């Protein structure tokens, strides 16, 4: 689990906040996804990309909030948790 951060000093600088959230999402066992895009706009941190379960989706918000307690977290992650019909076959000629 990642160490929570504060709301002042470097912990409030958006560039560092994005880096800390991204690192925590990649390494915290609750999420462990390197492919999540993290963007800070004003006082909001936005999470984008795809994860594999609702639990992982919700944990991403928790982890981001711990790393950016002074920011609002907007979780726009898509969850890939539904069976999918086979797609088209690519024929390699």
């Amino acid at each position, binding site marked *: 689990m990642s160490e929570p951060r504060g709301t002042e000093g470097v912990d409030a600088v958006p560039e560092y906040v994005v880096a800390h959230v991204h690192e925590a999402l990649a390494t915290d*066992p609750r999420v462990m996804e390197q492919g999540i895009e993290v963007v800070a706009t004003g006082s909001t941190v936005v999470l984008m990309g795809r994860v594999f379960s609702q639990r992982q989706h919700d944990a991403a918000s928790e982890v981001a909030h711990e790393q950016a307690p002074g920011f609002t977290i907007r979780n726009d992650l898509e969850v890939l948790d539904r*069976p999918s019909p086979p797609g088209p*076959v690519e024929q390699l000629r």
Partner: protein
Amino acid sequence: MIRLAAVGDIHVGEERDEALARDLAQLGGCADVLLLAGDLTRCGTRAEAAELASILDAAPVPVVAVLGNHDHHADQVDELVGCLESAGVTVLEGGTIVLEVHGTTLGIAGVKGFGGGFAGACASDFGEPEMKAFVRHTKDVAEQLRAGLASLDTDHRVALLHYSPVAATLHGEPLEIFPFLGSYLLAEAIDAAGADLVLHGHAHRGSERGVTPGGVRVRNVARPLIGRSFQLFELDPAAAAMP
């Protein structure tokens, strides 16, 4: 006619991935073999390996896999591989396998691969020991891949990787992290030995299609990118493997 199902980055955790389990259990009607392009687990623990094995054990076709960086995180690779092998999965790391499908032979050479970047903007085997070790690991696995492909005397040859051999299938990822997503050394090895198709994952936000400088098709089958449980490919029996 051989039909391949391929997916990377399935990131199986300890909890059941019902969608993935259901889709893979129904593979028999649409594919002859399932190829897994690494990052099979979230962090490579024994518990995740057991969950993954239970899903793959139910797959009705042969399963061939390489590991990814996530599968190494818990430092339990031997246990992970043992668990997969007991479920009937072939795990390649520098090795090859030949499958006979509908009277034709399919050779698969698999390595995890590694990073370093692409021609003109890549890491060099120079300087600190850490940097040299990084680049030399990529050189080593690239050579294993070349030797594996070259050893295959089959109707079709497929290179199965986790990291990408080309930049084209990374587009969509931040340019700054390309050196952590693949290496041109892998493409050079593939072009030296020849192949019909390269499959990889790792780049969740990349692009699906690319080609090596030597003309071999490259497909990024990362599950978050393709948005489904697998991608299907059909190999033309009339097409001989490139020399």
